[in-house]
């Protein structure tokens, strides 16, 4: 009799059932907003009795939603560029830096991600109020750059670590000046890393709420700030329509970053999913 082993074989589905339940808990609630977005009634009902696109029309016809979306795109592009440039300089600097306090410098780059955002938010809020620039476009771009460029530094640093430094040195040995060798040899090799850093920068900025609550004014209101006000004070299904569109967007970005990750892995000569 191998009853004991049969028992284990018979209970092998238990961990899978548990896993399935956790994954259901994670993903399923997101899709509840989809029927709410197409529901004709302004009251919440399951299942909706009549379908309509009126909440999407509400979004597109309401200047405050559209302006907030455009503002988020504008802020996101500026943050993405700024964070990628700062991240590139810092990553190359950290990779080449050989003097004292290297670990301290690395920790300092990551520090803005480790401190609760609310603490950074009130600190910047106060600094910007004293400087008289709170609520300006620059204020929110600076705030978002602070919490995105550490990611950019890590992502670009990882891309730099994947390539052979002797390639750039070979170019220098063949007579190229260091900046040209960097631009023509190293930079093309880490391009996928730069793209991922820029994409991350945009996405984090496009999603960020807490800094936006403190640092934006009605003139610089971003989409998450508009959503925050909407959820707290209106709670009509327009929010479900906006949410549906953003869930579609995050799905697309997720698939895109997966494709990029595979490209990055292939460039470095490793099969997908086997990067360091």
């Amino acid at each position, binding site marked *: 009799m191998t009853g004991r082993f049969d028992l284990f074989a018979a209970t092998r589905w238990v961990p899978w059932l548990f896993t399935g339940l956790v994954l259901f808990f994670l*993903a399923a609630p997101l899709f*509840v907003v989809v029927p709410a977005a197409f529901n004709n009634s302004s009251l919440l*009902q399951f299942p909706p009795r009549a379908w309509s696109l009126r909440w999407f029309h509400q979004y597109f016809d309401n200047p405050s939603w559209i302006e907030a979306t455009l503002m988020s795109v504008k802020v996101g592009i500026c943050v993405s560029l700024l964070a990628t440039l*700062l991240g590139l300089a810092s990553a*190359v600097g950290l*990779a080449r830096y050989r*003097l004292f306090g290297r670990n301290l410098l690395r920790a300092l780059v990551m520090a803005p991600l480790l401190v609760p955002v609310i603490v950074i938010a009130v600190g910047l809020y106060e600094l910007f109020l004293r400087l008289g620039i709170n609520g300006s476009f620059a204020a929110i771009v600076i705030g978002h750059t*602070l919490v995105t460029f550490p990611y950019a530094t890590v992502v670009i640093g990882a891309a730099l670590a994947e390539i052979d430094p002797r390639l750039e040195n070979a170019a220098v040995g063949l007579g190229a000046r260091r900046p040209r060798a960097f631009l023509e040899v190293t930079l093309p090799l880490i391009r996928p890393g730069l793209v991922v850093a820029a994409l991350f920068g945009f996405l984090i900025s496009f999603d960020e709420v807490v800094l936006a609550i403190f640092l934006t004014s009605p003139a610089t209101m971003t989409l998450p700030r508009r959503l*925050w006000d909407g959820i707290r004070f209106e709670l009509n299904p327009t929010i479900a329509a906006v949410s549906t569109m953003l869930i579609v967007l995050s799905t697309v970005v997720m698939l895109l970053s997966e494709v990029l990750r595979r490209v990055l892995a292939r460039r470095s000569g490793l099969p997908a999913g086997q990067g360091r």
Partner: protein
Amino acid sequence: MAGYGAGLLLLPGFAFILLFFLVPVGLILAQSLFDPAFSLRFYERIFTGPDYLTVLWISLKIAILTTAISLAASYPVAYMLVVARPAIRSLMLAFILLPFWTNVLIRCYAWMLVLQTKGLVNTLLVGWLHALAAPAPLVFNLTGVIIGMVHYVVPINILVLFSVMKAVDLRLVQAAKGLGANPLRAFLAVFVPLTLPGVRAASMLVLVISLGFFVTPALLGGREETTIAILVNTYFTEVLDWGFGSALAGLLLVFTLAGLSLYFAAQREGAELAAR
């Protein structure tokens, strides 16, 4: 020579961190300690009245409950990710990354639709299954905050634990089975102990994130679920008592730094264990 050029590259990033991170956080700390002469009056106020001690206790309770439930949900899923076939693993990761990439406001809004009085769960339980006579209060209370917080941290927790477990040599578990241990015993006596330092590090990280989180308790909690982060917001934007608000932010910072030093200690211990 190389260090000199690297220093120049590091300059923009660190100037940015100095100006927009160290200065604002320093400003908050200074403001919490000077009134206008050095005084611990603001901190005394937090620890002497019962009101603020209650807030500290609730913040801690939410963070600890979230961390414990999140660990219980994440550990088995991370393990299944390690042992799953690549195709299944990709599918599982999609379920985990989708909420990870979705705006936290949308996730809170989705939970409101699921949990509120006329939400999906109550409609199901009261209207269809007749399991309850009246809708259960599932949101705008502790239950809602914990559900929302767990939903927020589980993807992070799974991904961190997954990276810890990937480093464990599964042949050790096979060896234990070969020596006669049943699968459950091999798992509990060999695999679990090897992951414990990683579990400690991941849980510290989740605890720190939960403690300082603002959005979910603010949206899914009721008046009873006022956390330190919510109070910081209240004192800066409504009460306009920046001194006291700064002391609350300072306290949050101290808790975070204490948690993080435990996190890094656990991580170092884990690295040493893996190196052995």
